[in-house]
């Protein structure tokens, strides 16, 4: 960078062509996004289209065809089916997803902070252990885990789906947040330490606010994970009154009698809360964080 001969002239010309280039690149971005979006909206289109068709139209027309006479009867049927109580399932799913997300964000942020910022005995190798907990396929730990929860009487309650979230929130999230903390300059905590702050203050007042995009990401991903979890609720919840949406709606695919129209109507309804959560969450990605005290 020191090789530039005449910095003043160069920067002037850069700024003029820069504006043009920026305009051009924005337009280009829009075009690329527009081209790609069709590919990415396919699933939503098909889901909505099938949800708006009646059963005989789903069976007799192509999945790409828009309904001849869009109808909301499927949504009505899904929402009012007395055997598959949507409102109850919604309540159950919300309780599980919200509480477990809180647990995940809180405790994974704490562990990540320690792994990123504090020198403690055995840290680096404990971190390898942390990663290793992700590497064993869940299928082989499923039965022992189930037996364990059954023995402490947690089967048929929400506990197996919520309590573990308050104990670290999973290696994936800890690792993700640790990477973010590692990217935040140390000068900030050092300054706080000099002011007499303890680790907790540094964690809570300095790093948590700076890592907001990452925390939101962890929050959105774990909310979605809990919302869409299938095997967990399926295994641990027995009674119909305990069921979650993702499991409850599978009843429409049972046996050979797939009820695509109802399944898709239900799936669209299940997606809406996640879309809202994502839409709100992504606002924290709008502005880069102003880093003070950088190098």
């Amino acid at each position, binding site marked *: 960078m020191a090789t530039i001969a005449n910095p003043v002239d160069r920067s002037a010309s850069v700024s003029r062509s820069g504006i043009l280039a920026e305009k051009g690149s924005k337009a280009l971005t829009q075009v690329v996004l527009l081209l790609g979006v069709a590919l990415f909206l396919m699933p939503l289109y098909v889901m909505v289209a099938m949800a708006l068709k009646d059963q005989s139209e789903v069976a007799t027309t192509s999945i790409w065809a828009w309904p001849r006479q869009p109808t909301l009867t499927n949504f009505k049927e899904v929402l009012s089916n007395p055997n598959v109580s949507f409102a109850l399932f919604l309540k159950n799913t919300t309780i599980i997803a919200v509480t477990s997300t809180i647990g995940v964000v809180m405790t994974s942020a704490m562990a990540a902070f320690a792994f990123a910022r*504090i020198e403690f005995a055995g840290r680096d190798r404990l971190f390898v252990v942390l990663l290793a907990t992700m590497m064993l*396929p869940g299928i082989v730990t499923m039965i022992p*885990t189930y037996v364990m929860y059954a023995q402490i009487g947690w089967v048929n309650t929400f506990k197996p789906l919520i309590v573990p979230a308050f104990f670290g929130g999973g290696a994936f999230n800890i690792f993700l947040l640790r990477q973010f903390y590692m990217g935040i300059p140390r000068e900030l905590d050092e300054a706080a330490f000099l002011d007499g702050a303890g680790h907790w203050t540094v964690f809570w007042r300095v790093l948590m606010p700076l890592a907001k995009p990452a925390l939101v990401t962890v929050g959105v991903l774990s909310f979605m994970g809990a919302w869409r979890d299938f095997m967990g609720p399926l295994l641990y919840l027995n009674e119909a009154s305990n069921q979650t949406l993702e499991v409850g709606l599978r*009843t429409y695919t049972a046996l050979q009698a797939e009820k695509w129209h109802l399944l898709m109507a239900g799936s669209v309804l299940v997606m809406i809360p996640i879309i809202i959560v994502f839409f709100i969450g992504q606002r924290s990605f709008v502005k880069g964080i102003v880093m003070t005290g*950088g190098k």
Partner: protein
Amino acid sequence: MNQIRPWCIALLAALCGTTFAQVKLRFVVWDGDVNAQVLRNEVKRFEAAHPGIKVNFETVTANYQEKLIAQVAAKVAPDVAMMDPGNFQRLARRGALHELNEFFSLTPDFDLSKYYKNLVDAHSLEGRLYVLPRDIAPCANIYYNKRLFLEAGVPFPDGTWTWDFQERPELREKDFLWVMHKLTKKSGSDRPTQWGFAPAWRELFRDMVYLQMGARAVDNYESPTRILYDDPRIIKATQFASDLALVNRWIPSDTEITNVLQSNARQLFTQQKVAMFQSGIWDVPELRKELRLGTPGHFEWDIALAPVYAEGSRAYPTGGSGYCILRQTLHPREAWLLTQWMAGPNGMKAMASAGLAQPAIRELALAEPWIPGPNTPAEQQIPKNRIITDHAAPYVVFSPTSIYWPEVGSIGSQTHELVYRGSAKANEVLPPANRRAQERLDALRKEEQLPLIDWRIGGVLGFVLIGALITWIYAPEIGKKKRTNRQRRDNRAGYFFILPWLIGTLLFTAGPMALSLLMSFADWDIIRPAKWRGLGNYVEAATFDPTFWKSLSVTLIYTVTAVPLGVVASLGLAMLLNTKVKGMALWRTCYYLPSIASAVASALIWKKVFQPDGGILNGVIYGSFGQWIGLDRLLLPFADATGRVNWLGSEQTSLFSLILMSVWGAGAGMVILLAGLQNVPQYLYEAATLDGAGPLKRFRNVTLPMISPTLFFSLITGFIGSFQVFSSALLMTDGGPNMSTTFFMLHLYRQAFLSLRMGYASALAWVLFFVILGFTIMQLKMSRWVYYEGAK
């Protein structure tokens, strides 16, 4: 003594029934929605008739067997559960089910001889009944479209038809192939626009053909010792079924089925693309709704008995189900009362009046409400000819019920798939496949004499292991200088912050992981106590498991391709979506959608994208644009006989197709990288711009180093996750064709839950664990490209 005991029991039972608390039973079925509603009402009637018994009715519409097995292992099994011939042996052979014969005398009006005999046999093991049959479902119904028959001038079938290996025009409508031929319409280029016939699934017609020729897939359906896929009759039947689809083209081929519609033959029928289709009676309720009077798709239809081989005897594949009593129940008597109610006249009549299931008791299958009569409501009069369900019942043949069949039988069905696609001849591939299946069966049947695991040794091993792990973790600390106050404080703070994780890992993760490690040295079927097998599982994997190496290499290829591709795609998306253009919130949401869309909908869409004829992908490749840039010629080496690429159907391209599909889910990775991009301070870009760095240079020197921690995360977790992928294969290809998409995890899953070889599956899991660990450590070692702003 012998006389006193029944009295005591009766007295106790009477006391329990009258004065003590109610008996609570748990009753689990896999039926959903409408069926479940009928059953729930029937359970209420049962409770009303038995005031002392309260029934908790549960439905599990997916992963039913897995959940039941987990409950049995945890000793929280339900009292009564739905079961079928293909699955009950897994539990019965391991002592998890009650023999039902001992209960018969409890209900005086019970008479097993009223049940269809072959249905009772299919639910029995060594002469003892384990499942009380509820329904029978012979796949002997030919559903036919009356409009298309009238159009072609063919009389409606009356079930007296036959088939031979060639068309018999002289027999006219009494010859099944002639009818098939007559009802097939072809366009000018010899492409069928309407097929005469379609079986509900690929094997159905082939199985019927060889069963009617007198052949059987194994020597003994209950406990097979010989696989008979090399029987000349089965070879002939397989080739015959394939030829009807690929040479005569009277039956839609596999690709043609996916070309035209979503997933099954019933949908081809409702779209009037096939004139007849063969299936069980279960398709009736949906057909009634899909083809109801007054909708645009309506046409008249009915059912006829499937034909018989001119030189053979009647035989039809079938399904059926019933209820079993779990050995763990505390109330076997009450469980029997419930079972006998639900799989007796009461439950059967309820199911029959909803048109859902043919009663397993013959006299009920011959009368209303099953057979339409004067009291039957108008909309349930169709199909009129329901009496054929009884005509077929004496000739039904169930699939082998052996516990080894799911795994061994799949070797044969994979081969059948090849013949059906036309990539091999039956007489070339079936005999070698039969040898492989036989070897596998022999290996599985070999009962090793193994000692039970001594849990004291297991405990000692566990302690040694944990000790070794702790030593390894703290080894670098040994010999370090004495700690300063600050270091001590840091130490305390560090453990305070990781405490929740540490406790959680010890409580919820460590135990199951340690147990699975121990089980990897054991022969464990989940239900019975584990037996010590030493290194046997690992030796089996490395030496004589035919799927191990293949599935490992499939997974490796998938992982090393899909992960970098996915990370690059996510990064590209994140960069695009990190610009300040209008409506960014909306764009981001749109691109994130595929990661949250229903997996079933996604699978449906991708099948449509990849279908060889009329699919989007081939539409582009073989459209004018693709031909102009030469894509069609480029892909010629991968094309099949029709000159096009059959993306999911060809061994060469199926894995690549799944990789392409995985890139589509880049939205989740995008979110993470998008968050990473927020950590790049704006002033660095400004400074770089001022220094005259162009966009590329800025990307290389500012963006890349600043988000390298996030990229590193995406790569590591991407690899870890990708090694364990299998749901896309399960939904899209079921591991085929010819094992080209049999992921390691798919193999592991089948071993664990289809064959109940959890010890072996644990060994596979630990092999995978070390492969992933090796991969991860390699990446950690090579992580010098990662730049941490906050590193010391």
